[in-house]
């Protein structure tokens, strides 16, 4: 695992794109819909992170 500014910058772009989708959905519909979509994205990111850590543990 290489932690560098490059890797962190990739996360900034991912978070920014996710935030744009939440903002767009909120402005088009209602804040509740945007909040639910944001929660779904956070859960998906958490699940993906958990899977990634589990995969790294199996490798080492």
């Amino acid at each position: 695992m290489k932690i560098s500014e490059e890797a962190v910058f990739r996360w900034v772009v991912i978070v920014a794109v996710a935030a744009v989708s939440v903002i767009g959905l909120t402005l088009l519909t209602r804040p509740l819909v945007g909040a639910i979509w944001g929660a779904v994205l956070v859960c998906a990111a958490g699940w993906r992170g958990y899977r990634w850590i589990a995969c790294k543990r199996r490798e080492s």
Partner: protein
Amino acid sequence: MESATVAIGHGHAEEHHGPPEAHESSRIDRQTLGILLFIVSEVMLFGAFFAAYFFLRVVVDPPTWPPEPFELPVAVAGINTAILVSSSFTIHYALEAIRRGNHAGLKLGLVLTWMLGASFLFIQVNEYVHLGFSARDLGFGSIFYSLTGLHGAHVFVGLLLLSFATIRAFRGHFGPEAKDHLGVELPGIYWHFVDVMWIVVYVTVYIL
């Protein structure tokens, strides 16, 4: 005592003296690990403020949020968000430049990042002046100024770090090797963290 020291000195002339070498991981250097642990502690600090914000929002449960008569300048804060996000791109450009040995690009990227960060802070202070409510106005005023002020303080610290990095860049301190530009890489990681935190603050406080 003295003779014992001399004897040890003669017997192990080539051995390492002084404190033992620090343990190091082959995966991550000490400085990067340090900034990552610091950022984890900062996430917890912001988490406490967000917990207070959501607690207030759920407990008060007003028909509209922000509660009447508060109004937030969503568009201006949106432009400010764009400014801060673009500063992440400029600091990334600065680091990419120094990785290729381009010192002029490094300086340009750092100066641009500093200017964008300073613009963000200036617009935020200007927003505070024109908001029409203070931190003493109900719970909403308190938590609004606490969250955005906490973030503003982090931007200020980030600007200080960037100032040091910029001065060092103009003195020719950095090089293309990874160990030779840690003084830009670590402020860069911190700056990205500040950027991500603002995106979360903006979406939570101004949009949702």
